[in-house]
């Protein structure tokens, strides 16, 4: 009996949090999204707001663009984070390990806004990098590196790095060195050991890191707005615009809901394609 009570007491904050801060607002948002605005103060229940998303190419183009860029950013982050994490987990010792880890943390000591302004100072036409290129003679005139999709990518990857490195370091840490050595001993080379032993072992970390990074990129607002170019559309910007500048909360809610559903669908597809499932990633992680 006593044990039971303790269990529920421990569970209560989680349930409150899940219910109060996640489920209830979403239900609220869902009902709002079903309201079609006919005139000031005049609403009717319909799917018009959802239809608007599919009928207006601009909206779903924006979503597709956001999703594709986020997937790309996730992959680039993974490609960069993997060797870094491997180095931190397996090769670096003591002090260097701590220093490297701190370096990954460094971007988070300043706010996202400051971080993004930092990139702007570096990459702008009259910025540090442009001057450097001219000074070394690699460029004859000022180079503009801001305001394009590549810059957004740099910003997203930079912001996401830590969220990929932490789960990767954790899983790679638990990889027994003897497994890697056995892989070589039995005739494997670097590539096959990576493919057959290291990556399968790190898969839970890769999957959870990728999900987090993908969601963060998808939901990022400042980076694409500030670093992006004239034609750079981002879905969260659309949602913000609907809510704030157009006072169209109904449409905004529908977009918010679509973002939730479509991003979940993308994550699910990703898991299926890599033959993973959420419980093995987040839960017991299979046998060790």
């Amino acid at each position, binding site marked *: 009996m006593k044990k039971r009570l303790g269990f529920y007491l421990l569970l209560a904050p989680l349930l409150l949090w899940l219910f109060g801060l996640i489920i209830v607002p979403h239900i609220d948002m869902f009902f709002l999204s079903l309201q079609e605005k006919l005139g000031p103060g005049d609403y009717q229940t319909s799917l018009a707001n959802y239809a608007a998303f599919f009928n207006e190419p601009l909206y779903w183009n924006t979503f597709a663009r956001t999703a594709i860029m986020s997937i790309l950013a996730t992959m680039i982050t993974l490609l960069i984070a993997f060797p870094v994490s491997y180095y931190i987990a397996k090769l670096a010792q003591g002090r260097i390990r701590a220093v490297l880890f701190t370096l990954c943390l460094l971007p988070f000591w300043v706010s996202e806004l400051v971080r993004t302004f930092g990139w702007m100072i570096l990459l702008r036409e009259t910025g540090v990098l442009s001057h450097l290129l001219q000074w070394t003679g690699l460029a004859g005139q000022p180079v503009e590196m801001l305001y394009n999709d590549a810059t957004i990518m740099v910003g997203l990857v930079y912001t996401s790095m830590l969220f990929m490195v932490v789960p990767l370091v954790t899983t790679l840490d638990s990889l*027994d060195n003897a497994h890697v050595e*056995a892989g070589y*001993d039995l005739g494997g080379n670097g590539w096959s050991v990576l493919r057959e032993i290291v990556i399968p072992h790190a898969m839970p970390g890769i999957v959870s890191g990728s999900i987090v990074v993908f969601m963060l990129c998808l939901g990022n607002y400042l980076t694409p707005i500030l670093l992006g170019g004239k034609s750079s559309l981002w879905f969260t910007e659309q949602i913000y615009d609907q809510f704030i500048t157009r006072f169209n909360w109904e449409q905004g809610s529908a977009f918010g809901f679509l973002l939730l559903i479509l991003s979940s669908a993308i994550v699910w597809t990703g898991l299926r394609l890599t033959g993973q499932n959420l419980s093995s990633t987040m839960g017991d992680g299979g046998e060790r």
Partner: protein
Amino acid sequence: MNDSTDQAPALECRDIVRTFGKFKAVDHVSFSVPEGSFFSILGPSGCGKTTILRMAAGFLEPDSGDIYIKGKSMLGVGPNKRPVNMVFQHLALFPMMNVADNIGYGLRRRGVAKAEIAVRVKAVLERIGLADSGAKRISQLSGGQKQRIAIARCLVLEPDVLLLDEPLGALDLKLREHMKVELKKLQNDFGTTFVYITHDQSEALVMSDQVAVMNKGVFEQVGSAQELYYHPDTAFVAGFVGDSNRWRGRIDAADASSVKLTTADGLSFAATPPKAGGLGAGGEVDIFVRPESVQIARAEADVQAMDNRLQGRVESVLFNGANSRVLVREPRSGGEIDVALPQTGAFHELRKGEDIWLGWGKDQAKCFAAGEAG
């Protein structure tokens, strides 16, 4: 092995040295392992066994010296290119693969055709008596089964030398006894050269054709189990291999075949000096006497002919069938002497508190310059 035969040893190490920082883990070690034999390296924890094995496998390079496998130098050859395989201390079976995939891993790396891999994996599973386990996950195996899979994973590649790093260390005592026999059988069946490292002397003595006793980075003695047991070259070997009664004393007189000494408590003994000789009067020495070398008698007359005689009182009788022992307290030094009871059962009625006589010949007492012993 000598180089004149055209059969080169399966593994040969020549004067290898390996240091970690200032610490010399392996110090000028040379040995060679004949084709098809079971070679053990026996030594206490931290003496450098694993380091030698890792150099043979290719995970470490020696600072100096050379390693030959079947007559070919292995310096600069990566672990994946050496015709040796290793069974790791904790086996290192791949948890994300099933048993068959684990065993097939090395064959896949060699580009063997899929069908051929299946056949060979099946064959090796049959030979180790786990024919039906191919589809099992590693976590579904017992300790002993894992052991056999780990060995099979290497043997399927038909290596010139199989290196085993204390593979029985993680098993419980009973299973360990069983696996000892099993391992020896596997080695016989496959005819593969085994280099086996352990700190457990019974493992080494039971299974090996040759045993190297290692201490602090150097090989003290290499020989058959019998040689090590009956003719230890050093105090360390005498102490480390098998049980011994031990006394320390100062030499009264020494010649090529015998040494006379007196302990601090005033006991006098006669012993055999080491082959190398070099002991002189006044020097401090240790003597080692095996429990089964000590004769036991109720009357002094029965041990009258022996070079060394002692009287003592039975402290306790440790009955264990054929391995029964009796602990005898020697009154002058207060020390305990470990004596094996004769298998005839002659003294089975011995009781605590009885006064008895002990005696042994000087050739049963091995004498070495005092120093550190195992």
